């Protein structure tokens, strides 16, 4: 019997994997991909809780999260392309010009 807890645990695990990716990877594209993993974990929570409460609101929030994720991916990737033109690398440690 699958309960709400199973889905919450799964999305917690996925969110932690995404966080670890953001912190540990030294590649801008992989960092963006890890953010997508985190967004999807949250989406899963919304849908599962919406199903538990018997409302469609969870699915509607998921819809909006997906649109925001699309906008974020477009802007993020444009930034990555621009940064890559300047330094020829995707390692975030190379971009320290704004550091004190």
């Amino acid at each position, binding site marked *: *019997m699958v309960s709400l807890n199973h889905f919450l645990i799964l999305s917690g695990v996925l969110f932690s994997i995404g966080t670890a990716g953001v912190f540990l990877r030294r590649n801008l594209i992989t960092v963006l*991909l890890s953010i997508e993993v985190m967004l999807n974990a949250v989406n899963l929570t919304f849908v599962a809780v919406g199903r*538990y409460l018997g409302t469609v609101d969870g699915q*509607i929030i998921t819809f909006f999260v997906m649109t925001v994720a699309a906008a974020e991916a*477009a802007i993020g990737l*444009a930034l990555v392309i621009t940064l890559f033109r300047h330094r020829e690398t995707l390692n975030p440690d190379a971009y320290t010009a704004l550091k004190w």
Partner: protein
Amino acid sequence: MEAVAFYIFAAIAVVASLLVVGQRNPMYSVMLLIVSFGALAGLYVLLDAPFTAVTQIIIYAGAIMVLFLFVVMLLNVEREDSATSVATMVGPTGMKLGAGLSVLLAIEVVWALSRLGESHFGHDAETVNISSVARIGQALFTQHAFAFEATSILILVAMVGAVVLARRER
């Protein structure tokens, strides 16, 4: 039956996400993320949300991941610099801090969930209600109409912003 499907999809999603993070080659990372999204779409079907499952496949796997693939191919950086191997990966203090934070987050999530009572899903009329696309559409275009329109402006702004940012200066 449902439990078996849940565990299969959950295992695929977790393993694929782990490999996304652990992969050296961004191309494989993108492909594995598509696998993970597919498994999540299966979970949405189990949750009586077929509309969300289809949007997941079309928007995420179909549109966003293709965008990522384009950029990976455009930049043509196949792997990370060899200087950042696994041995040096946890080198700088910032990274140690990050690793500690993500482990802490995982522990906190597990701790919070372990204190949660078991809550089972209802089975009957309301299930039929939430899986209906008509109801989603109705709520989206009446209750959430403003948010929906605001989203279209957001997409427009993102599109213009992406074009302006990625354009070559002359």
